[in-house]
């Protein structure tokens, strides 16, 4: 084990996998000579050279498509988006091509590609740089979507994503890159895609939170514990395929659930998890499932409005109070 920053854990995953497979390369804006816009790929140009660390122009649609074409023809690209907000320009290649080519050709062509980069908001960046895209991509068949919250999960799941023969979207956060955590350092450390993790045991309420919201939920759980409410905190880690069994198992014990999600309320992970819970655990619920999400507005710039916009530990506590009838 070693204590690594989130960005170092991601870099270690890329580095270890690249050292084992010549067909893996990284492409994206500023990944090589600039050493990564957020220093995730720092040092990899020196180690692997400009054949395998490729700086692209600001042309998300074009380089995403070149990545997909390279994957069709036997390579294993890791395509970095400076943020998933910019990947919207590449949506045609991700949604119409990467996710569909294998199916449309009756299984003739595989697309072993990873699209990765930061997701969701990162402070006062206003409306176009603050959107969480995991649920949108999870809507589409043919894609796997991962959004982790801690360095060890990031390393283990990114290694699995790179080894996966299907297209995988791997999401990070600018605000988590400096976060430190213990990370296994053996080469074969992987975490299977599609497995949630119970990260805090508790008997009073199940809280589901992933990505940056996991840390918001953690703060809420710590505060609630002081008040005698024990939260069982589940991090799905993978959005698609979603491990609903782990969540349902917990609800059968706690009978209450709050989902914390940095998406807008309509059609996000919280909406989907809420539906699945009523289908799978209706008779076990002692209260309607509550959710804490972004409001149905764009991200504002002004500090006071932004703080109001982003889910906070207080909102999580309030939702827990509702499902536990403490209010």
């Amino acid at each position: 084990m070693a204590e690594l920053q989130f960005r170092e854990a991601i870099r270690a995953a890329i580095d270890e996998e690249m050292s084992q497979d010549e067909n893996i390369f990284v492409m994206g804006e500023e990944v090589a000579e600039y050493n990564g816009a957020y220093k995730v790929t720092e040092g990899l140009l020196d180690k692997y050279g400009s054949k395998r660390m490729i700086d692209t122009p600001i042309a998300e649609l074009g380089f995403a498509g070149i990545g997909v074409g390279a994957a069709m023809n036997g390579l294993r690209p890791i395509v970095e988006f400076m943020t998933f907000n910019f990947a919207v320009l590449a949506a045609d290649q991700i949604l119409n091509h990467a996710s569909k080519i294998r199916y449309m050709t009756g299984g003739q062509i595989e697309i072993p590609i990873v699209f990765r980069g930061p997701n969701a908001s990162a402070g006062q960046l206003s409306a176009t740089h603050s959107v969480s895209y995991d649920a949108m991509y999870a809507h589409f068949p043919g894609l796997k979507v991962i959004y982790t919250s801690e360095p060890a999960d990031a390393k283990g799941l990114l290694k699995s994503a790179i080894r996966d023969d299907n297209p995988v979207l791997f999401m990070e956060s600018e605000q988590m890159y400096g976060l430190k955590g213990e990370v296994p350092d053996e080469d074969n450390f992987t975490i299977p895609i599609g497995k949630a993790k119970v990260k805090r045991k508790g008997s009073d309420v199940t809280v589901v939170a992933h990505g940056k919201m996991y840390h918001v939920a953690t703060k809420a759980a710590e505060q609630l514990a002081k008040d005698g409410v024990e939260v069982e905190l589940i991090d799905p880690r993978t959005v698609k395929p979603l491990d609903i069994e782990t969540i349902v198992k917990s609800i059968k014990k706690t009978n209450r659930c709050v989902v914390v999600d940095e998406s807008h309320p309509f059609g996000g992970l919280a909406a989907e998890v809420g539906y699945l819970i009523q289908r799978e655990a209706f008779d076990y619920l002692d209260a309607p499932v509550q959710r804490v999400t972004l409001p149905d507005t764009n991200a504002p710039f002004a500090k006071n409005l932004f703080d109001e916009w982003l889910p906070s530990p207080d909102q999580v506590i309030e939702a827990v109070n509702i499902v536990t009838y403490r209010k």
Partner: protein
Amino acid sequence: MAKKKKETQEITFTPSGTGIRTNGHVVRSTELPNPTKKKHKSLGLSEEDVVDMFELMYLQRRFEERAMQMYQKGKFGGFLHLYMGQEAISTGTVYALNDDDDIITAYRDHGWGLVRGVSPKEGMAELYGKETGCSHGKGGSMHFSKAENHFWGGFGIVGGETPLGGGIAFANKYKQTGRVTACFLGDGAVDQGSLHETLNMSQNWGLPCIYAIENNGYAMGTAVHRHSVGELYERAKGYGMKNAVINGMDVFTVYEKMKEIAEDVRKNSEPWLVEIRTYRYRGHSMSDPMKYRTKEELQEYEKLDPVERIKKYLLDEDIIDEDKIDEIQDGIEDTIMEAIDYAEESDFPDTSDLYKHMFVEDDYPFHR
């Protein structure tokens, strides 16, 4: 203070009408460059090659004529975009390329499949949506493919295949396979941003790819001069890219030019932008009333028919006689009728195949 003008000018945007600004007495959506004057021997083609080219072109033509009939009879659904009139391009190109060079194209892909190893049976069965189709009934008309023969498929989003072609070429350069990629797109796809992005990176990175625009005069119902400014091949100039404009109604010309270009790409690992001018005889798809063009224009191009042209060459050069032509045509007719029987008799995919081919693994936990 400026005085208000009393009369306001009528505002227009897209140029309208069927005329073109440089037209002669017959309106044409594209002007064809001269075909090659060379005969088959000086192009390095044997008499057998020329006969084979004719067979391939006639096969594509009859396959689609019969497919159209079956579609009109309601034998299968979906879209049906016909390649008729453009067969010299697919045929000349596969002759110019090595068998392991890579080809990718858009949704007008039946001809491309047939010249790159999709059998008439597999092709017809795919149109019918049968399990025995080249894409196991999952792709249909727009998604013929034969990956083992380096035909990566037809793609349904206009301009979607352009960066994919660049990526296939990227992988060839990365792995030093020596293979050339030929990425075909329609004149309508020239207007998509994906072409600009791909050409820019291709030139910057030296990708071994030929981006070949099949300019058939129309982006669906919009004539090329109404949707795109300037000459299409001249877009290459902005990237410092090698370029050419080719007569696509003559198979020898397509063969000669594409062979030269492929050799250059293979030798120098530099991309080309090529405009191949041609004409589509049928509508964009089967539901197209074709009101955007004149009957006279269609007739002008039908006089230049690539299949008739090579047939005439075979006869004029005494390579084969009328009887042999009839024999070949009858044989192809039989092949296609057998393909129709095969498609009709084949099974639809099993309903459990709905989930097949989504993911590489068999045990993916689908959301429900």
